[in-house]
């Protein structure tokens, strides 16, 4: 690997990290608006408000940064970075095509799961350091949600690892075959739902429930730091969708020309999934705390255990 290559890879990853969330964000603006029978942003940039998010960004950069006197200043300032950076790190190991991956780790899946869960720490830090009751509650809710949904997430992921017999993400994509759609469907659902919950996306947005606790951990944030949290949320969606695509939907593989059009297939899957994320937000009411925990422990965990059993049996019988 030459220096040039290294730089190229880094640039590509950073670019993906900066652009894809914006696309998803814009998609959310528009898709949500249309689902709710309105137009959404129409002015910024001219064509259907395509530059709305860029404008938002510029605005955020210029806004005043307020740190409440009650807050723990250092943790408060650090939290957005902690929330954001893990998603960027995760992107580095996601394969977008055959051989097209910034870093090919043998234990990619493990790495991804480990790094992703760091991100929630950002929310918890924010909630804890703000010195605000709503924030504290929100932070605790985030933590609890992570606790509850991490287990099914991990179990579902390990089901795929079992099926593929490897922890390498590229290896999983290569081992994937269409009938997994059927066989690993429960795992897919579990993974996707648990991932949403970890991101605190609606309908699992108890931690930021605006009607109860304003904006949870982010209540006290303003300006650019708030923007970083927003960016983290959308980056999270991208990462979740990318992972779901890689693990369950065959990543870069498509009905035809997988080798040539790999990245295209991959991105298509990511955006379809991102659309589903948005769709779920619009069409579902928020779950209560007890429902959240119940769903995790009484539905997802047993289901994921059953999926593991199924995977194991099928795999052994097949071999």
């Amino acid at each position: 690997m030459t220096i040039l290559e290294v730089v190229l890879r880094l640039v590509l990853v950073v670019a993906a990290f900066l652009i894809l969330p914006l696309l998803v964000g814009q998609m959310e603006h528009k898709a949500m608006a249309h689902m709710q029978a309105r137009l959404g942003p129409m002015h910024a940039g001219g064509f259907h408000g395509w530059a709305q998010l860029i404008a938002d960004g510029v605005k955020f950069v210029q806004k005043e940064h307020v740190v409440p006197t009650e807050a723990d200043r250092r943790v408060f300032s650090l939290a957005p970075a902690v929330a954001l950076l893990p998603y960027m790190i995760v992107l580095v190991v996601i394969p977008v095509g055959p051989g097209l991956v910034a870093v090919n780790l043998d234990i990619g899946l493990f790495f991804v799961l480990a790094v992703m869960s760091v991100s929630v720490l950002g929310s918890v830090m924010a909630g804890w350091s703000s010195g605000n009751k709503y924030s504290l509650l929100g932070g605790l809710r985030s933590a609890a949600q992570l606790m509850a949904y991490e287990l099914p997430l991990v179990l579902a992921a390990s089901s795929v690892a079992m099926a593929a017999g490897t922890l390498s993400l590229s290896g999983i994509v290569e081992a994937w075959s269409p009938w997994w759609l059927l066989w690993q469907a429960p795992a897919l659902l579990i993974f996707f739902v648990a991932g949403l919950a970890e991101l605190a996306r609606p309908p699992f947005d108890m931690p930021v429930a605006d009607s109860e606790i304003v904006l949870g951990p982010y209540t006290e944030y303003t300006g650019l730091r708030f923007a970083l949290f927003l960016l983290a949320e959308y980056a999270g969606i991208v990462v979740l969708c990318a992972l779901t695509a890689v693990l369950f939907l065959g990543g870069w593989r498509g009905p035809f020309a997988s080798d040539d059009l790999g990245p295209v297939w991959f991105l298509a899957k990511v955006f379809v999934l991102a659309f589903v994320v948005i769709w779920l937000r619009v069409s579902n009411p928020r779950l209560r705390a007890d429902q959240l925990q119940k769903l995790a422990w009484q539905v997802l965990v047993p289901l994921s255990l059953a999926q593991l059993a199924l995977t194991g049996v099928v795999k052994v019988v097949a071999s």
Partner: protein
Amino acid sequence: MQGYFGAYGLIALLLVVGAVFVAVALSANRLLRPARPTPQKLLTYECGVDPVGGGWAQSYVRYYVFTFLYVVFAVDAVFLFPWATVFAAPGFGLATLIEMFVFLGFLAVGILYAWRKGVLSWA
């Protein structure tokens, strides 16, 4: 940038890049933004009213039971992953599978127990 350390070196590099990105953004922010703090502005936000009590008010932590459950169960994944990658390889077979089922069975019993004890329902 080859091999074991190479791969992680790249990741570390990316982390640095990310940190730089955040730092640059925040510095830009610092240059561009106004800074006019007033005591009122720096007050803790409580829907516009003056804050009641401290922000660090104690709240009952209902979630810790789940924390324990998580700690107990999620860490077991440590065993699951290495197993998952090899159990179907030649030479392992059914016995290995059954052993892991026993392991999963223990997890399931744990959940069952928690459920019967009413830990899982919101009190």
